[in-house]
C-alpha cells in the first residue's frame, strides 16, 4: 500500500489535515455500514452466507483504507493540493440546490434550468447574470419541448409549463 511513499514524499513536516479528514470520513462510513449489517435479523438459513457478509467485508476494507489514509497524512503520501476558490464551487452547488428546491415547490423545469445555467455560468467567472438567465431559459424551454413533445418523457411542470 506504500507505493507513493517512495516517489511522492514531499517532506511535509506537519500532517495534512484535509487527508486526515478524508480518512476519518472513510472510517465513519465503515462504521455506518457495519452497524447497518449488524442490525439485520437473519433467518438461520442465511446465517453464514447471508446479506451481512459482503457489507462486513466492505466495511472492513473501508476502515483499513481509512486508517492507512490517516497514517499517510502524517507520512506525506498525498500530493499537494492547489489553492481553491470556494465561491465558484458554492455557485454551482447553489444552482443545483435551487433545482432541488424548485422540484419541491413546483417552480417547473424551465425556471430550474434558468437558475442552474445562470448560476453555473456565474461560477465560472462570467458577470452577465440576466443575459445568462435568458440563455438558460431558452435552453430549458427547448429541452422541455423536445423531451415532452418529441420523446414523450415527462419533466416537472410549473406555472409556465402548464400553459404549453
Amino acid at each position, binding site marked *: 500500500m506504500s507505493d507513493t511513499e517512495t516517489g511522492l514524499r514531499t517532506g511535509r513536516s506537519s500532517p495534512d489535515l484535509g487527508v486526515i479528514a478524508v480518512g476519518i470520513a472513510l472510517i465513519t462510513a465503515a462504521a455506518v455500514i457495519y452497524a447497518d449489517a449488524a442490525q439485520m435479523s437473519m433467518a438461520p438459513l442465511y446465517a453464514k452466507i447471508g446479506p451481512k457478509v459482503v457489507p462486513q467485508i466492505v466495511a472492513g476494507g473501508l476502515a483499513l483504507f481509512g486508517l492507512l489514509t490517516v497514517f499517510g497524512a502524517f507520512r506525506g503520501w498525498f500530493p499537494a493540493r492547489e489553492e*481553491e*476558490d470556494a465561491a*465558484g464551487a458554492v455557485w454551482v452547488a447553489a444552482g*443545483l440546490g435551487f433545482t*432541488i428546491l424548485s422540484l419541491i415547490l413546483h417552480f417547473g423545469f424551465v425556471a430550474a434550468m434558468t437558475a442552474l*445555467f445562470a448560476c453555473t455560468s456565474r461560477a465560472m467567472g462570467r458577470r452577465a447574470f440576466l443575459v445568462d438567465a435568458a440563455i438558460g431559459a431558452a435552453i430549458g424551454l427547448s429541452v422541455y419541448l423536445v423531451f415532452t413533445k418529441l420523446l414523450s418523457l415527462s419533466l416537472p411542470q410549473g406555472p409556465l409549463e402548464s400553459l404549453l
Partner: protein
Amino acid sequence: MLETFAALGNGFALALQPDKLLFALVGVFLGTAVGVLPGIGPALTVALLLPVTFKLDPTGSLIMFAGIYYGGMYGGSTTAILINTPGESASMATALEGNKMAKAGRGGPALATSAIGSFVAGLIATIGLAFLAPALVEFAISFTSADYFALMVLAFVTVSATFGASRLRGLTSLFIGLALGLIGIDKLSGQQRLVFGVPDLTDGVEVTTLAVALFAVGEALFVASRHKAVVEKIEAVKGSVWMTKEDWKRSWKPWLRGTLLGFPIGALPAGGAEIPTFLSYSLEKRLCTKPEEFGNGAIEGVAGPEAANNASAAGTLVPLLTLGLPTSATAAIMLAGFQQYGLNPGPLLFAEKPDLVWGLIASLFVANAMLLVLNLPLVGLWVRLLAIPQPWLYGGIMVFATMGTIAAKPSVIELGMLLVFGLMGFMMRRFDYPIAPVVIGLILGPLAETQLRRALTISLGDPSVLVKSPISITLYVLAAIALLAPFFISALKNLGSNED
C-alpha cells in the same frame, strides 16, 4: 468460423435496415458533438445521452449507443488536437503531438491521421471482437459461480490498483463504489441494506446518476473552484485536411502497431486505454526515423496512440459482451444501459438474443464507417462547438446532467444524490482519487456478491469452493501479481537508489 460469418451476416441484415442506420447516424452525430466539448470524455458522453434512448426499443437504443461510444471517442481526440484539453486520460498521448501539429499549422493532417487511424483500428478490432467473442463465450459457458467471482476480483484489482498514481487511493475508490452498490434491497434475501427508511433508496443507486454526478457535477465544481482556470487557445485548422504522401507513409505502420497494442490490452479484463496509448506513444518515438520531431508535432505520435485508443475501446467490449464484465467507466455505463432493458451481457446473451448481439457488433462497423465519412467534412462544425465560452459550456453541461437525472427519475432524493455525489466527485478530484473504480464498483459489486453467495450456497458455506478450480486459482494468482507487482518493482528501485 463459418458460424461467425453467418451470425455477422445476420447482424448486418439487421444493422443495415433504414431505421437502424438512422439510429446509428444519430448516435454517431450526438456522440461526436458531445464528445468534442472540452472536459467531456466518452464515459460522460454515454451517461449524458443515456436518457435520450429511454423510449427506444432495446436493439435501436443499443445501436445508437454503439454510435455514441465511437463518436464520443472520436470527438475526444478532436478536442485533444485542437485545444490540448484531453477529455480523458486515454487522449493525453494524442494531445502531446497532435496539439503541437495544430500549433505548427498541421492541424488538418493531424485530424486526418487520427480519423483514418481510428477507422483502421476500429475496423480491425471489431473484426477481432467478432471472432474472439464466440470462442470466449464457449469457454465462459463452463465458468462456475466461483470462477466468475475470481474473474471479478481480478477485474477489481486491475481496474483500481494496478495502474494509476496510488494503489491506496485506487482501492479506496473501488470500495466506495462497492459500498454504494450495497444500498437497496438485497436480491437474494429481500433484506434492506443502508436504506435508512428512505423509500427511494430501496432501488439502489443508479449508475447513470452516479456517473453523471462524479464526472459532470464533480468536474464543474472542481473547475469553478480553481479560480485561475486557464483558457486554452483553440488552434485553427490551417491547411488541407488531406494528408500528403509522406503523411500516409509515416502513418500506416503506427496505425497497425497501435491496433496490435490496443486491442489485446483492452480485451483483457485489465481496463483502461491509457496504458496502450502511452505504450504506443513511446514505441513510435523509438521507431521513428525522425525522433527529433517528437515533442514538436510528429505525425506518428498521433497516429499510433489514436489507433491504440480506439482498438482498446473495441477491446473492452469483448469482456463486456461475453462475460458481462465492464473494465472501464464507459463500459460500466453501457452495462447499465443493457440492464435498463433487463438484458444481462454474458455467454447466455449470445445464445438467447443473437440478433441483438450481432446487430450491435455489425452496428459498430457501420458507426465506424459513418465516422470516417462524417467527421472530416464536418470538422468546421466541431471546431465551432469548441469555441463555446467556458461559462456557457459548463452551464450547458449542468443543465444536461440535471435534465437526464430528472427525466430518468423526477425525485428530490435522486437530485439530492446528484448533488451529494457531485460534491464527492469534487473532493475526489481535489485529493487525486480515480473516478472510474467507483462506477465499476457500483455496478460490478452486486454482481460479484451474487456469484460469491451462489458459490457458497452450493458448497453449504465451505469457502474452499472458491479456490477449487484451476480457472479460479489462475485468476487469483494473476490478481495477486497485479496487486503486488508494483510494490516489488518500487522496492527493487528503492534498493538500487538507496534513498533512505
